[in-house]
């Protein structure tokens, strides 16, 4: 007896019946599919904000990069280092060197008010003063328009994200900060990293503009290798001349993004979870009415000898199919609407704006489809069990 084969052919034929009858239940089917598509689109969309933010942060930090700040400072904003300290830091062994000297850039970090293009309200835009080694410390940085600023001149280059989000940062325009005007001479990209939110100038010029004397806020360095980090860190923290903390660049950016990622993921999951519950009810509704509409047909099949298990499985298939279509539609919608959507937000740690793009990653798409499948399975299970348990005689009598 070819039991299993028979069972599978039963499932196949009931499923076929179900799927063929879908057009007759257009309204209910559409409600389920669109409902699930909505859940998946919102889930993927909201989580793509967090993913994009995290990605901007992670591409910024390379494992052989490190940042040195005053100990106790939780961001560059509140850190402070004197010229004598930055010199000691730059001379510490472990830092990669070129003919021009160590790959260490002592930097200044301030924020200035510039209007957002979208809302015309002021935003805190980071302005960073750097030393010549900065471009080698962050090797992903490329000038994509105009030219690099001249050292010693009051010129600035602007990150691609900042140029997009904030008004008045085109090459050739003049950026007004207090009583100073800084010509914008170039736009740079940094592989989508945090630097793209920033405006860069010569640290010395910025020190003068801000009456900072010869003080800095942080030193960014590039090490010989990722493994050199621990020795470099120990050398600095045990140096009695210094009172600093050393953080791997990648860890620093993760720290900086923690608050916003936590906010977006917590809220995003809560919203998507609630929506999923709503969608389960919608799916249950559709499948229950499908079962009700087909109760006679199912009873007939059962009377002909089709098994209860086959009925359950095939109804689950039907519900799963609807859910997967909904999930695919939702994921596609989220991808089209949100992937690479540029925006900016406040980095709570440094009070400055960070520009980034939403990222609908493959992992998020998979997660969306998995949620859809779960909704479909839960929505199909109970109606399917009811269908299988229906007393055959009673259902046939309805005929």
């Amino acid at each position, binding site marked *: 007896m070819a039991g299993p084969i028979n069972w599978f052919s039963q499932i196949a034929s009931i499923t076929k019946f179900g799927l063929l009858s879908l057009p007759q239940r257009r309204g209910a089917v559409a409600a389920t599919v669109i409902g699930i598509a909505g859940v998946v689109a919102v889930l993927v969309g909201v989580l793509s904000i967090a993913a994009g933010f995290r990605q901007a942060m992670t591409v910024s930090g390379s494992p052989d990069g490190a940042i040195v700040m005053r100990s106790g400072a939780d961001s560059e904003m509140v850190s402070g280092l004197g010229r004598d300290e930055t010199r000691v830091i730059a001379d510490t062994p472990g830092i990669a060197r070129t003919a021009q000297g160590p790959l260490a850039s002592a930097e200044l970090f*301030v924020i200035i008010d510039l209007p957002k293009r979208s809302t015309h309200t002021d935003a805190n835009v980071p302005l960073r003063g750097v030393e010549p080694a900065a471009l080698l410390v962050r090797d992903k940085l490329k000038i994509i328009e105009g030219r690099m600023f001249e050292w010693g001149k009051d010129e600035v280059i602007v990150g691609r994200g900042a140029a997009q989000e904030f008004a008045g940062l085109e090459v050739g325009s003049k950026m007004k900060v207090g009583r100073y005007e800084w010509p914008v001479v170039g736009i740079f990209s940094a592989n989508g990293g945090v630097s793209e939110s920033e405006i860069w100038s010569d640290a010395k010029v910025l020190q003068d503009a801000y009456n900072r004397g010869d003080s800095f806020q942080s030193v960014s360095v590039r090490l010989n290798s990722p493994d050199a980090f621990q020795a470099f860190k120990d050398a600095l923290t045990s140096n009695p001349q210094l009172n600093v903390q050393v953080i791997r660049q990648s860890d620093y950016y993760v720290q900086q993004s923690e608050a916003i990622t936590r906010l977006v993921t917590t*809220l995003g999951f809560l919203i998507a979870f609630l929506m999923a519950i*709503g969608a389960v009810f919608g799916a249950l509704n559709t499948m229950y009415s499908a079962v009700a509409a087909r109760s006679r047909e199912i009873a007939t099949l059962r009377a002909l000898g089709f098994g209860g298990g086959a009925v359950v499985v095939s109804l689950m298939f039907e519900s799963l199919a609807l859910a997967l279509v909904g999930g695919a539609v939702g994921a596609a919608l989220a991808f089209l609407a949100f992937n690479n959507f540029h925006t900016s937000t406040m980095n709570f740690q440094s009070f400055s704006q960070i520009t980034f793009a939403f990222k609908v990653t493959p992992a998020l798409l998979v997660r969306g489809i998995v949620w859809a499948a779960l909704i479909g399975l839960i929505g199909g299970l109970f109606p399917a069990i009811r269908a299988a348990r229906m007393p055959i005689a009673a259902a046939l009598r309805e005929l």
Partner: protein
Amino acid sequence: MKFLHLVWCNLKRKKLRTSLTLLSIVVAFVLFGFLSAIQQALVGGVALAGADRLIVRQKVSIINLLPISYEARMNRIPGVDFATHQTWFGGIYQDPKNFFMQNPVEPENFLKMHPEIIIPPEQVKDWLATRTGAIVGRRTANRFHWKIGDKVPIQSTIWSANGSRTWTFDIVGIYDGKDKGTDTTPLFFRYDYFDEARGGWGKGQVGWYTIRIKDPSQAADVAKRVDAEFENSPAETKTEPEGAFIQGWASQIGNIVFIVAAIMSAVFFTILLVTGNTMAQAVRERTGELGVLKAIGFTNGRIVTLVLAESCLLTVLGGTLGLGLAWLMISRGDPTSGLLPMFFLPVRALLTGFGISIVLGFVTGIFPALQAMRLRVADALRRM
């Protein structure tokens, strides 16, 4: 009204379908309440801003400080009632995750400027008598179980107290907010203690000023006069009404209103389909009965009303349950542990939600209702 029973019985006919539809509506309104609370937490401060208060900050950036001498100069500007200042302290209590704001202020002027801060007079007296005294909002006090008399150590990321990063404050008062939306997370301590204890850097400088103006309708003129007063000085100012300041701050986080609106429309569009589908099914099943009702003399208007009443009853019931549930969930507090201090469900949102539930009932019911109205008695009865 006498047909309410009939409407109710119709809903009860397919209990399972009705309850599943009802539950989806409930979920939609829980979401609505939840998103309203998020929006309130992020941008709600604007509505509570004092119309007679201006915020003065350094023109280049809020992180740049302003001299303390500006206070006296502001007080002399026509239209200004008085000015007082605050400074960002940036302290951490035990763990950076325990974020709340701490600012040094001048106690008397500060309390005069902010009548929304409610604190017993004897606690104010203690504050004025205790140099290291601080007052803290109810929410933060509850969060860390602080009581009056406690000594609280706070690490400042920016300022050192006599060479040390740890500042110790004596809690002398716990304040409440006048409105539900008043933020009762900040801690306020005395500027004189702060200025004396902080090292050389920043001495005599403050973060920003708040100005009380005599006539709110003159806000723009007074703001212009303030900025003109400090023009061409090393620390130029930017003055704007408190509401605009908060709005600007909120829009730095992102376009929250837009995101919330986008999610809500996705949610309600879905619910519209689910409920609309249920109502369409219900009317289709009852074609015969509707025919009988018409045959015994029910007017078209009455038929439409019956169907609409049914859909509205369903959505209003779901809406009320959902909003109630949201209210219960939200009163348990901020789900992000500290990032959203003003997380609550405003009454305005409850009313809007209720309104939406009626509209939803109407929109989902109107097409099935019209369909029922257009039924010809003979056709309908034949289908019985």
